[in-house]
């Protein structure tokens, strides 16, 4: 395996910056890259400044934050569950969060704070249901990680069913909102939403980085972790909860976006990163770049029709999942 080169950090940051600038410039009204950069600084054409600052910049930031949250969440889950296929979407965490968000939404909650909290409650609920289902299938949760993954898929399916049932009797407005959550989209980006998501991701991300070395130890298995003085059960639950919070915050802001959390940690490991503190930072940067690029594709590929962002990431992620599954088998 190759060694991680420190200059790779510059490459990761530059990729995010370039993709973001292109995403700011491209759209229904194309703006040349130079003019887009000027508009960011508040220089030049007033219309361009308005489009860039009020519409595209918050959308790009929202996409970047969603990607960062999903990447960090996936890296933490894969390490602590010792499962290269773990990610919030496949574990049912995102599905549960979507149920929470849809319930809050259909009860008339409008504020991002309430919806994020409801999504978090839903995500945590899904975690416990998935753990319960996995436990019903075996004695120890981490003893059989495949069971946990299957449990997650079952919880995800249940979450989908719950949303469908809620939809059957809902008003058209609620239906539109719920569909939006199921497909994933960065379209409803407002500065308030960006700020709220940014705060959640920063807080939970900092917590994850604080405990990152514990993930290194958890990745060695419960017994070895115990011999190094780490209570795997407690530490694992802590990481799981923080990862669920990260995923739930992204779901509240942009709906269900799958496979980013799966793909991105593998790319970070492929760059030569092993230790989870740098791995989580790199996964955040790569996730941000990936989601901004996927959202750009969603907006422009079939313009004027906008494709669902979650569908784009799934199209990228499913083949990747199959390759990983083959490798794991």
């Amino acid at each position, binding site marked *: 395996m190759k060694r991680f080169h420190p200059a790779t950090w510059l490459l990761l940051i530059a990729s995010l910056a370039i993709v973001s600038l292109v995403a700011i410039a491209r759209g229904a009204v194309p703006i040349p890259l130079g003019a887009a950069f000027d508009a960011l600084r508040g220089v030049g054409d007033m219309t361009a400044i308005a489009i860039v600052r009020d519409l595209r910049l918050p959308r790009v930031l929202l996409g970047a934050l969603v990607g960062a949250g999903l990447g960090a969440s996936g890296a933490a889950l894969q*390490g602590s569950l*010792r499962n290269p296929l773990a990610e919030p979407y496949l574990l049912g965490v995102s599905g549960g969060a979507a149920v929470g968000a849809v319930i809050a939404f259909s009860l008339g909650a409008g504020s991002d704070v309430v919806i994020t909290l409801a999504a978090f409650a839903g995500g945590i609920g899904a975690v416990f249901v998935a753990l319960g289902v996995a436990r019903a299938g075996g004695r120890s949760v981490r003893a059989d990680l495949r069971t946990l993954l299957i449990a997650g898929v079952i919880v995800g399916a249940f979450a989908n069913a719950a949303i469908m049932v809620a939809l059957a009797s809902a008003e058209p407005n609620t239906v539109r909102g719920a569909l939006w959550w199921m497909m994933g989209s960065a379209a409803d980006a407002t500065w308030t939403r960006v700020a709220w998501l940014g705060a959640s991701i920063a807080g939970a991300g900092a917590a994850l980085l604080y405990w990152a*070395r514990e993930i290194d130890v958890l990745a060695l298995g419960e*017994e070895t972790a115990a*011999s*190094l*003085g*780490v209570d795997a059960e407690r530490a694992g639950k802590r990481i799981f909860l923080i990862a669920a919070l990260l995923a739930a915050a992204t779901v509240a802001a942009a709906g269900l976006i799958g496979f980013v959390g799966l793909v991105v940690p593998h790319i970070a490991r492929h760059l030569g990163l092993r230790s989870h503190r740098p791995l989580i930072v790199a996964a955040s940067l790569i996730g941000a770049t990936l989601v901004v690029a996927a959202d750009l594709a969603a907006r422009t590929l079939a313009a004027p029709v906008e494709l669902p962002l979650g569908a784009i990431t799934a199209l990228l992620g499913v083949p990747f999942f199959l390759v990983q599954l083959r490798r794991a088998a």
Partner: protein
Amino acid sequence: MITFDDVAVRYPGARAFAVGGVSFAIPRGQLTALAGPNGSGKSSIVRALLRRVDLAGGSIGLDGRSIADIPPSELARSLAVVPQREESAFPARVRDYVALGRYPHLGLWKSPDAEDMRLVEAALRQAGIDDLADRETDALSGGEWQRVRIARALAQSAPALVLDEPTTFLDVAHEMAIFELLYSLARAGKAVLLVSHQLNLVARFADNMVLLDAGKVALSGAPSEVMRADRLEQIYAWPVVVTRDAATGAPALVPLRQPLNL
């Protein structure tokens, strides 16, 4: 010194005790071997040391203190354990893996300093794997991987070392190398507990043997006292003789044949 005082373990939902009142000591400077048939409670003893199971009775002491009263990271600085199995989900460079043995000394944030890295290099050397330091853990043979795991435990620089069947699946040379390493570590002052099925090798290397049967100590003492054909035959439920190894003079167990008539 680790002391087991009437230790009992019962798993949730189980009627029988996995370990039913076991007492023995693992003194510093000695190699103590724990043996016994499958299911006799050896791994439960290791799990109890790691505090992965609650004791149903008795206590485990470390230099006079009950391990139940010792904080986890302090315990990990005093006692290093190489569990029976470990499948790493993601490969790592051998040196980085061994350096995780410093975790109980470093905690979440302290960076390894020169002294930590010196101890990691010393552990690699002691385990005889300094030439593997830059390899990936998924590119190792079974024998190399076992020595890498032992090096990780050595990097913990704990005065007590416990290994659960470290030579399973290893060939003669790799197995001997590990026994020699554990013997030297014990002679250098560590308290070493080796869980092993290799009675003949154990009889040659260990200072003391503890033989478990159905969760109780069936025999304990010097190898010459434990290697008794009559008792081993009962414990393993198989006809055996004990001879003297011609080359070394150590007691040697020879299981006899019981051909099947199919």
